[in-house]
C-alpha cells in the first residue's frame, strides 16, 4: 500500500516541541519526519528524501536554520523544496532576508496557522 499522505520534514531542536509538532501534523494527515538540527535535516535530504515542505526552526545547535537554508539552496535538486519557518526569532530579523521562506510563523505557535500554511503550500 502506497502512502498517499504528503511528506513533511520538521526540523526542531527542542524535543518537546518536535514531538508535539509531529503529533499535530500527523493528525492533520501528513507523513511527518523530523530532524534535531540543520545538519541532520540536510543529511536526510541528501539521502534522497523529498518532503513537499520543510518546517524549520532557526535557533538550533550544530547547524542553525539559516545555514541549513543556504546549504539546501546550493543543491539544485533541493532548492525547489519550500521552507516554512517556525521560530522565536522575529520575521523582521535581517538574517531572514536571504531565506526565501514561503511563510514565517512565530513561536509560541498558532497551530491553526501552521496547518493553514501547510495546506496552502503542500
Amino acid at each position, binding site marked *: 500500500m502506497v502512502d498517499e499522505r504528503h511528506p513533511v520534514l520538521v526540523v526542531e531542536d*527542542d524535543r*518537546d516541541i518536535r514531538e508535539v509538532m509531529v*503529533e*499535530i501534523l500527523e493528525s492533520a494527515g501528513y507523513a511527518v519526519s523530523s530532524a534535531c538540527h540543520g545538519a541532520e535535516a540536510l543529511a536526510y535530504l541528501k539521502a534522497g528524501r523529498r518532503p513537499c515542505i520543510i518546517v524549520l526552526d532557526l535557533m538550533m545547535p550544530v547547524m*542553525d536554520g539559516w545555514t541549513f537554508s543556504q546549504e539546501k539552496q546550493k543543491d539544485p535538486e533541493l532548492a525547489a523544496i519550500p521552507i516554512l519557518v517556525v521560530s522565536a526569532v522575529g520575521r523582521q530579523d535581517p538574517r531572514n532576508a536571504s531565506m526565501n521562506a514561503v511563510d514565517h510563523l512565530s*513561536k*509560541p*505557535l498558532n*497551530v491553526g496557522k501552521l496547518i493553514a500554511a501547510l495546506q496552502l503550500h503542500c
Partner: protein
Amino acid sequence: MTDGPPLPGPPADVASILIVDDHSANLLALETVLAPIGQRVVRAASGQEALARVREQEFAVVLLDVMMPGLDGLGTADLIRAEQRGGDVPIIFMTAGDIPALEGYAHGAVDVLRKPLDRDVVRAKVAVFVELFRARELIRRQTVRLDAQERNAAARSAALLNASLDGVVGMDQDGRITEFNRAAEVMFGYRRQEVIGACLEDLLIPPRYRGAHRRALAAYLATGESRVLDTRIELTALRADASEFPIELAVGRVLADGSVTFLAYVADLTERKRAQRASTFLAGASEAFAGSLDYEATLQTVVRLAVPHVADWCVVDMVAERPPHAIVQLALAHVNPAKMAFAAELRHRYPLDPDALQGVPNVVRTGHSELYAEISDAMVQRAARDADHLRILRDVGLQSVMIVPIVTRGRSLGAITFVAAESLRRYGGSDLAMAEELARRAALAIENARLYRARLVAEERNRFLAEATAALGASLDYATTLERVVRLAIPTIADLAAIYRLEDDGVIRLMTLAGRDAEQEANARELDALLPLRIEEERLLSRVIRTGRAEMIAEVPGPLRELWSPTSRAEELVRQLAMRSYMAVPLMVRGRVFGATALTTSQSGRHFDVADVALAEELARRAGLAIENAELYSEAQNANRLKDEFLATVSHELRTPLTAILGWLHVLRSGRPERVAHAIATMERNAHAQARIIEDLLDVSQIVTGKLQLRLEVIELAGVVQAAMDTVRPMAEAKGVELATYLEPNAGSTTGDPARLQQVVWNLLSNAIKFTPSGGRVEVHLEARPGNVVLRVSDTGQGVRADFLPHVFERFRQGDSGPTRVHGGLGLGLAIVHYLVESHGGHVSAESPGEGRGATFTVVLPVRAVLSNL
C-alpha cells in the same frame, strides 16, 4: 696779524701765500680774490712785516705792493732774497705806476701785475706758483732736502735719518750700502756698522730678486732712466734672520761730486698687510655668517678662511646646548691638511680639562680672552700632561696663541682659538681685537641661527601636534589611529616611534611602530621580538609603565647597549639601530597606565631635551583621550550588543516552553486520551522551566536595583547542599551523568539565606550537569577550612575557554552565544551565584584546564558570614 704767537706751520697739503700792501682795503680785496684757490693767505701791511713772515715760514708765492711808505716793494724784495728761507720764493710785484717789468725782474720778481688787478689773472698766476711750490715740496721731501742736508751738515743729516720713522738705506752706484738708519736696523735686523760698505743686494734683497735689481741699476747708470725713482713701490725684503717681509719703498738720488747716491725710504708693510688680511678675513667671515643659518657649517667655513691668513691652526669649540654642557670641538682647520687628523687626534687623546685655569675652558668660564704672544718652551712644558703630550706639543711648534670667547647676552657659547706655528707669526693687540670682533659676529650669527631654529622647531611641533590631534579624532578605531600618529612623528619628532600596550597578563606588547625606512622598522620589530618585555622587569619602558612617569636618555651610552644585548643577533640589531637619544612617556587612559610611547633618534643625530619630553607627553595625553573615546565607544557598542543578544535569548527562552505547552494543549483538545499523561508531564516541565526563567529575570532585576533581600538564619551548609542535590538528581539521571558527593558532615554552620544558598548550589549543579555529556561525572565537595567552608563543584564537561573565564560571572554572558548555542538558559545563573555568594561575604571562582576538560567552581563562605552588600 703781527701780534700774538707765531702761526704754526701749515699742513703739508696747504700752501701759504703772502700778500703785502700798506692799504688794508687792498689786502682785504686781494684776500677775497685769492680765496677760491683754497690756500692759506697771510697778510703783511709793510715791508718789515713781510720780512718777519718770511722768516717764520715758507711761502709758495709773495704778492708785493711796490708803492709803500718807508721800505718799498723793491727794497723788501731785495731783503727777502737775502733771507735764507725766502731766497728762492717767487715774488710778484703789484704796481699802479709804470715800473718797467725789467726793473721788477732785476729785483728778483717773477712777474709784475698792473693795478687795478684783474682777479682772474691774479688767480691764474698765483695758482701756477702754488702748483710749482707743491711739486718742489714733493721733490724736496724725497731728495732735494736730503741733498741740501747732505750738502750742509752731515751730522744733522744723520740725526734726521735716525729720527725718521721710515728705514733709510743709502746705496752708491756700485751697489754698496752707504747709509743705514736706526729704523732700518730694527727692520732688517742688522747693526749699521755691520752693513756700511757691504753689498746691498746680498744682505737686503731675497736671492730671487737680485738679478732684477742689478739689471735696473745698470740700466740707470747707462741711461739715467729708472722706473723706481721718485715713486712708491712695494717689494719683498730680506731680514738678517733670512725671513722675508713686505716693504714699501721710495728711492731718490743724490748727485754729488759727479757720482750718484741712491737713498731709499723703506716702510715695513708687515703690519699693514696683516691688518689688510685681518680685515679681508673679517669681511669674508661676516659674509659667511650673514649668508647662512647653518652656523655649524658657517663656522667650518670661517676656520678655513682663518687659515692661513690669520692663523696656522684655528679651532672653534662650542658649549653643548644640553647638560652637562660639555665643550665640543665644532670646527677645525690646519694650514697643513696632513696635520688636520693629527690636530683632531690631539684633542681626542688629551681632552680638555673643564677646570683648567687657562685655555679654552677658562675662556669659556670667564668670558675673557687669553693672548699668549710668545709661547715659551717652559709654558709648553707646564701645559703638557705627560712626556708624549710634551713631545707632540713641541712638534707642533706653537709660537703664539689667542683664545677669544663667543659670548652673547652674558653667556659663553664657546671659544675660537687661533694658533700660530709654522708662520712664526706673533699675535698682538690688534690681532686680538680682530679675533674678538670675529667672535662677536660669530656670537650674533649663532644666536640668530639658534633663535631661528627654535622657532622652526616650535612651528614643526605645533604642526605635528595639530596633525596628530586631527588624526586622533578622525577615527574610533584606535589601533589604526595610533599607527597614523606614530607615522606622523617621523621624522619631525623622532627617527623611530613605537606604542606599547600593557596586556592583562603583564606582557608589554608592541602595538605599532614607525621608522625612517622599512629596514629600520623591520630591525626594530625583530629586536622587540627578541627581547620580550614584562611589566616587572627593570627596564626603562617597563619602569615608565609601572611608575607612570616619563623618562629620557639624552645620549644613549654604550653600557646601556650591552644591557640590552643578551644575544648576538640583538646586539647586531642594536648596533644597526644606532640609537642616539631615547625616551618613553606613559600612555594613560582613564587614570590607569595603558602602555607607553617610545621615541628614538638615530640617523638624525638629534638629542631629545626637556621640550621634546613635554611634546611627547602632550601627544601621549591626546592619544590617551583618543583611546579612551574609542574604548568607551566600543564598550557602549558591546553593551548594546550584549543587551540585544540577551533580549533575543529571553524571547527565545520564553517562547520555547510556551510553544511546547500550547502544542500539547492543542493535542489534548483534539481528544487523544492515550497522550494525556505525556502531554501533562511535558506541559508541567515546560511551565516550570519558564517559571525559573522568570524568577531568574526577577532576581537579576532586584540585584540591579539593589532590592534583593536575604532572609538570614543560622544554617548547616551540608543540609543546603543535600537539598539542592535532591532537586537535580532526576536531571542527572535522565542525562546519564554520574553525581558524586563528598560532604564533611560538620563542615560548618554559617549565617545565610537557606533558599538563596540552595539556589547557588542548584545553579552550579544544574550548570555542571547541563555542560557535562552523558557518561560524564559531576562531583560535589564540601570541606571545612579555618574560618571558612568551601564548596567545590567540578565536572568532566566541556570546560570553559581561557578567554571566557574572566567573564564567566558577568550578566548576559554565555560562553556559547549566537544561533547555534547548544544549551538553553539566559546566562544569568552564574551572575546570580556570584552576587549571592558575595552578599554572604564569600567569593566564588571558576577554573578550567581548557575546553573539553571540565570545570571547577569553588565557593568559599565564611563560617560566620559577614553580611555585606546588603
